[in-house]
């Protein structure tokens, strides 16, 4: 993985027409995904999931169980891929790291006073450093939405750049914009451009802690920011919609959107992720249905 280059904040960002974005999204959902395309897509979705638990009530046991699920999604179906990563709080990184040793599944840690981002920069840096010391492969940071909405773009940019520097070559950095708090698609685009300029390896929609989380229009606007960056620099940036995508069908619509907006180079776990907890089971259920022809009760699939 080559290191992202860092540039200054772009002077302006393109304007976004919400009506047009919603119309385009409706076209993605009208694609008919059948037979081999569907099966291949479902496997792809599973391999792109960051299996997530971010609760105050998380225990080491729960983390270990989830890690097993991530590396062995459903033993009775052969050939299922492992998920891309698990996503946990910094304090749980050590446990997850140990549980996933040798599986190829990454450990992602949220940081920077997740989910609100309401902490001094020093705390955010310390938070991130802790996660890295525990061995996190990926850092999911949140931006300071308050500062961004006040117009302090340089502050937001600097924070991202500092965290990025800390990650160095050890971990890939995902930058959470928390789009549900940004209010307009114009701001989503602006925040995307700032995060990309500051060195984000991935841009990510949401913490999953507030509603709305990931939506197709928000994701499309972010994908377009990634595409424009690629057009002007030749450099790829990853995308992670998170929160709110719980059905396999809607996950497939996201893949259609990525394919038709960015191209197939982005259709793998290096460049596209789903942040989700319930999605994995629905995908496995759909794969089972495609294989056996029958839907099985949810009780046949482990919930952890």
């Amino acid at each position, binding site marked *: 993985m080559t290191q992202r280059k860092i540039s200054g904040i772009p002077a302006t960002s393109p304007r976004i027409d919400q009506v047009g974005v919603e119309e385009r999204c409706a076209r993605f959902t009208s694609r008919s995904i059948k037979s081999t*395309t*569907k099966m291949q897509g479902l496997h792809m979705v599973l391999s792109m999931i960051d299996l997530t638990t971010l609760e105050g009530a998380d225990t080491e046991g729960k983390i270990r169980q989830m890690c097993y699920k991530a590396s062995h999604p459903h033993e009775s179906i052969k050939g299922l891929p492992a998920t891309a990563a698990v996503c946990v709080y910094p304090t749980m990184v050590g446990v997850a790291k140990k549980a996933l040793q040798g599986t190829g599944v990454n450990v992602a840690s949220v940081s920077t006073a997740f989910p609100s981002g309401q902490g001094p920069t020093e705390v955010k840096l310390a938070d991130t450093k802790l996660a890295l010391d525990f061995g996190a492969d990926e850092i999911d940071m949140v931006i300071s939405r308050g500062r961004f909405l006040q117009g302090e773009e340089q502050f937001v940019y600097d924070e991202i750049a500092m965290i990025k520097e800390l990650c160095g070559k050890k971990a890939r950095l995902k930058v959470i914009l928390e789009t549900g708090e940004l209010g307009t698609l114009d701001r989503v685009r602006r925040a995307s451009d700032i995060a990309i300029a500051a060195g984000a390896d991935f841009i990510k929609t949401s913490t999953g802690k507030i509603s709305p989380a990931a939506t197709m229009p928000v994701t499309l606007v972010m994908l377009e920011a990634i595409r424009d960056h690629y*057009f002007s620099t030749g450099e790829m940036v990853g995308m992670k919609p998170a929160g709110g995508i719980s059905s396999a069908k809607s996950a497939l619509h996201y893949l259609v959107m990525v394919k038709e907006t960015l191209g197939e*180079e982005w259709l793998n776990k290096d460049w596209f992720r789903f942040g989700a907890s319930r999605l994995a089971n629905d995908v496995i259920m759909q794969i089972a249905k495609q294989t056996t022809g029958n839907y099985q009760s949810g009780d046949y699939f482990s919930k952890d």
Partner: protein
Amino acid sequence: MAGKEKKESGLWEYSPAPESASIGKIAPKYGLFIDGKFIAPAKGRYFPSINPATEAKLSMIAEADAADVDKAVKAARKAFGSWSRLSASERGKYLYRIARMIQERAREFAVIETLDGGKPIRESRDIDIPLAAAHFFYYAGWADKLEYAFPNRKPKPIGVAGQIIPWNFPLLMAAWKIAPALAAGNTVVLKPAETTSLTALKLAELFSDCGLPPGVVNIVTGAGATGAALVNHKGIDKIAFTGSTDVGKIIQKAIAGTTKKSTLELGGKAANIIFEDATIDQAVEGIVNGIYFNQGHVCCAGSRLFVQESIHEEVVRKLKHRIKSLRVGDPMDKNTDVGAINSKAQLETIQKYVRLGKEEGAEIFQPSCNLPDKGFWCPPTLFTNVSQSHTIAREEIFGPVLAIQTFRTEAEVIAKANNTPFGLSAGVWTDKGSKIFNLTSKLRAGVVWANTYNKFDPVSPFGGYKESGFGREGGLHGILPYVQF
């Protein structure tokens, strides 16, 4: 991705998702629908209707001559008496019933429209058929409110309307014409285009099934000669025509000196104007929808694109990237974006213009796509380096071909946009409201879309200036040509 010149291949291709052709029940042979019955044409002549995507024959269609047209007009005249005297709310009920039955049979209509005309099933299913039903619903509502539509003017029907419709939106154009005519108490003789008669004939079956009195709508099929017989028939009170400017001029000549009223909706060469302050990604989407919708067989297609010079490179790059992801091929596949060209003759016309574009020095771009061996196909095409004097910027191509020019100032683009014999539609893309108002008041076009394109609604009148014709269809304006005071 454009930058890498890598062909989109194999990684995650959409599997075929064909709609079932068997849903469309097509008889091997269709007669003329006159006085509520299907009857054989006087001379017994039939012509084939083919599927332009496969060139396979779908059915044999009757060819009406002057004697058949005469029969149809007489049936319409006979029915006019009772239909025009029927209480307005009863007429409205018939129209509501037709609208509901179109909805009930929507899937069959969509399948036949796609088989017969080559348009993608996605479009016939999501646009043509629902809009056709919407037009009947809309005019059904006006039937018993005409007194309020034209207060103190006592609107009365005109009589028998001769209606001639094109092949690009067969059922929808039939609905645009039939619904307001019937709502106002007129009777109709309709001639569909010879390459796409089937949905009009299915509509005739629907009229029978819903109990519409015989003779209120008659459908005569055939080519130009049948249309001429209809236009020249003395028993016709009004001609409504949608089609080419050339034929429109012939009709004008033919009815000169008669008392026949007329409305003509003819060709277009719409300017789609994109300013540097536009929301570019959404504008690109609108440009694609404006020119590649229905293979560009749209009279209001945004076939001339004017891009402000500062964003020319970006817009062209994004357009090229976008049209690479358009799927061209089997119209019955639910994932097809661009279907088959309607006929061999039309394909040859388009190819002639593409050749002219290259010869006159414009730069062509077509994405590589695997086109089927049989059928009539043209990939989405765009030309850069186009001048205002190039043939492809002046004449209507009626295909998926976009001619791109640049401009610097508002005054310049208004002058260029209006410098055409046509004036049907235009599009403006800018984030600035004042600019929209300035342009919409200065562009000489019947419809001007702002930050969108090809949006249709029964409530909104549609029609042209100059060689794009006169008269309006849709909305309250659409009833006016069918009433007298």
